[in-house]
């Protein structure tokens, strides 16, 4: 016999592993614990317009990928006549359209679905751009030097330097006014940082707001400190990335690069969608094909099958509990779980009525069969055929009466029903109808309890999305298998006895 210590160790290990997987799924993969939660998905459409000059056209556009806060779910492009390729260059993906000849105003569409996902990270971490010194013309060079000098005095590191530069541009209004005509504010700050040997660049970001159309990208500052970076609003100096901001171009590449066209511009429109977690998760899993053992990776049909299978352990645990702790008598060890599975298909009331109808009329016919003196296997087979005929008749009658729900009794497991009828019938002959009602009622009660648990959307959600819970259920069953205390039914059974003992009487 395995020692108690190693048994409890196994139980604790199972429970910990299961809970660990569950927490991992929740925290890292972002699977919520409740099914009602919805996930925010942004559908963003980029419209690129340019005038083609009649020559071959290559239009290349920076596109947003999975990044901090957002997971890319799907992308589509609508661009009649154009060839489209996604090209990766230096870790940055770009969409490239090409056509042999085009003339006039061209419109190319690119649509992307982004899942708001706090756990998302860019596949390739952002790397600092090379610090390249450019020389500035006067009088700009002097103005820039003045700003930088003051800011450097008051700063300690790249981030504080950035803040100070932005503050200094407010203080030295004259210089700022002068430099405004030289280059955009974000570029200017980036240039200043670069000349102070701080890697920095301008990135293009999209502020997400539901239902907005014809939006343009805004410039943002990305300042590096070693391998980390921070984003700064070049206007206000506020540090950090706002929740509703999606980086569109963040690789020091041009947003648009068109040969064979001019007057180009990109505008964005976006809508916000709320999707149930399951849908969002399924889409997310479709994309991540790394070592991710999850049912979401299976085809939809198999997923549906697993959804049912993963519920069985819940029913089984409940049955173990009812039998070992409560002491409910059921006919057939796990028959109630199978009946509960059928209830899931039929719905409770229809299922109950169907079950009682079939088993009840089955018992009547079975009592006739018992007089025919048949061998057991043949008799059970006869009962199976009878059950199938009854199900057929009940379905047909229900359909005629307009009760479409009645059709669903075909979901009952016929063999199990036949055996139930057989057992009940023998029970009836040997122990009387009382015991039949007791065990049949016990089975039905267990089935209904198991059904209520298995049908709860919360439990369905949990078992399907957190495979680790199966290990926890396993641990629970192992623990229950070790329970040596009294059953609830025994508290009743032995009550007269202990009452007598407590009152000091023994016997009469």
């Amino acid at each position, binding site marked *: *016999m395995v020692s108690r210590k190693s048994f409890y160790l196994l139980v604790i290990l199972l429970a910990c592993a299961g809970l660990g997987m569950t927490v991992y799924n929740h925290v890292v993969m972002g699977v919520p614990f409740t099914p009602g939660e919805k996930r925010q998905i942004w559908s963003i459409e980029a419209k690129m317009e340019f005038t083609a000059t009649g020559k071959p056209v290559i239009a290349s556009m920076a596109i947003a990928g999975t990044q901090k806060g957002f997971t890319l779910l799907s992308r589509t492009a609508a661009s009649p006549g154009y060839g489209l390729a996604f090209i990766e260059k230096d870790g940055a993906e770009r969409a490239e359209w090409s056509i042999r000849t085009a003339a006039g105003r061209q419109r190319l569409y690119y649509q992307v679905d982004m899942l708001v996902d706090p756990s998302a990270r860019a596949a390739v971490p952002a790397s600092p751009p090379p610090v390249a010194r450019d020389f500035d013309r006067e009088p700009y060079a002097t103005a820039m030097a003045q700003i930088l000098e003051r800011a450097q005095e008051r700063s300690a590191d790249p981030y504080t330097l950035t803040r100070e530069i932005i503050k200094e541009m407010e203080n030295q209004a004259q210089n700022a006014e002068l430099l405004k005509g030289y280059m955009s504010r974000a570029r200017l700050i980036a240039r200043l940082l670069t000349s102070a040997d701080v890697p920095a660049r301008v990135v293009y970001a999209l502020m997400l707001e539901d239902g907005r159309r014809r939006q343009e990208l805004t410039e943002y500052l990305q300042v590096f400190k070693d391998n980390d970076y921070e984003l700064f609003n070049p206007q206000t100096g506020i540090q950090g990335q706002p929740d509703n901001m999606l980086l569109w171009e963040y690789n020091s590449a041009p947003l648009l690069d068109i040969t064979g066209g001019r007057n180009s511009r990109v505008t964005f429109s976006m809508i916000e969608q709320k999707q149930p977690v399951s849908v969002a998760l399924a889409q997310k899993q479709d994309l991540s094909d790394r070592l991710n053992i999850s049912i979401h990776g299976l085809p939809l049909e198999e997923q549906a099958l697993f959804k049912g299978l993963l519920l069985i352990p819940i029913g089984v645990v409940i049955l173990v509990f009812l039998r*070992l702790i409560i*002491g409910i008598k059921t006919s057939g060890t796990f028959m109630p779980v199978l009946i509960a599975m059928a209830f899931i298909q039929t719905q409770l009331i229809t299922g109950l009525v169907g079950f009682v109808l079939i088993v009840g009329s089955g018992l009547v016919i079975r009592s006739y069969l018992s007089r025919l*003196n048949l*061998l*057991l*296997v043949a008799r059970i087979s006869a009962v199976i055929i009878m059950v199938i005929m009854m199900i057929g008749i009940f379905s047909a009658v229900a359909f005629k009466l307009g009760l479409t729900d009645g059709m669903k009794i075909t979901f009952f497991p016929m063999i199990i029903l036949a055996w139930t009828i057989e057992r009940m019938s*023998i029970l009836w002959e*040997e*122990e009387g109808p009382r015991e039949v009602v007791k065990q049949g009622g016990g089975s039905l009660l267990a089935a209904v309890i198991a059904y209520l648990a298995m049908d709860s959307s919360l439990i369905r959600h949990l078992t399907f999305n957190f495979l680790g819970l199966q290990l926890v259920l396993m641990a629970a069953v192992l623990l229950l*298998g*070790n*329970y*040596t*205390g*009294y*059953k*609830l039914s*025994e*508290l*009743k*059974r*032995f*009550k*007269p*006895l*202990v*009452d*007598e*003992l*407590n009152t000091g009487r*023994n*016997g*009469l």
Partner: protein
Amino acid sequence: MLFLEKYTWPWHLSRAGILGMNRRNHSYISRYNPRRLYPLVDDKLKTKRIAMASGVAVPELIGTISEQHAVQRIADMVNDRPGFCIKPARGSGGRGIVVIVRQQEGFYFKPNGKPETAQDLERHASNILAGLYSLGGKPDTMIVENLIHFDDVFAGYSFEGVPDTRVIIFKGFPVMAMMRLSTSASGGKANLHQGAVGVGLCLRTGRALRAVQFNRPVQHHPDTGLDLFKLQVPSWDTLLRLAASCYEMSGLGYIGTDLVLDKQLGPLLLELNARPGLSIQIANGRGLLPNLRTVEQLEERRMTVAQRIEFAKQHFGVFDRNLITLT
């Protein structure tokens, strides 16, 4: 709370030393009964064979039927027997047992006087063979045994059935005993939950301690009105020896032995049960656990059957003297 009044608290049970189903299965049956030995007790035919081999007295075997085509042989088999008993070899809980007390003009009469035809018996036989009464519906063998003529001492104590004595043997020690008397409520069956009367027996003397029916104390047999407290099992020592020797015979540590007292042959072993029920505690008005623990705390040394019985009588007995010597 009327509903709650039907229930007691678990600590009341544990203070009374009541053995519960879970603890019985976990700490006694699965710990002391090796699985491989189960077939010996689950199959009454095998039990009979090992009992005969080790000199334990059993009811006489008339014959067995294990093939469907042989069921017509029943009539021939029991031709010269006035009474006999048909049993499934692997039945449980007394299911599938038919007792015939006499034959007359081709009819076989049950204890309640109901006649059965040879055809009825054949149908019953094929049910047994098909596994209707066996665990898991496995094909079974039918046993035909000679009818037991139970001791006159028990006349009037049992309604239609054979009064049998159940002794729980734990590691070879008798730890509790009771008598099961069938009633009209139990339909001649000796199962307490069906309404049979359970009479707790003193292990030292075989005297009745108390009697219960449907979990409630009774003093008189509900059908015959006899005073149950006057009951004393004769040949008690022989019976205990027979029961305790089943430990060596079967190798099972926790068994229920079912014995009957035949008028001529004395105590006979009817069957062994590797999962004996818990009602014996109600019949005795005490829990099994104290006795089981006493035996478990004994140091491991081989004791003879006589020594074990002596130990059990000393520690688990209630009355000092026999009823007969009193009156």
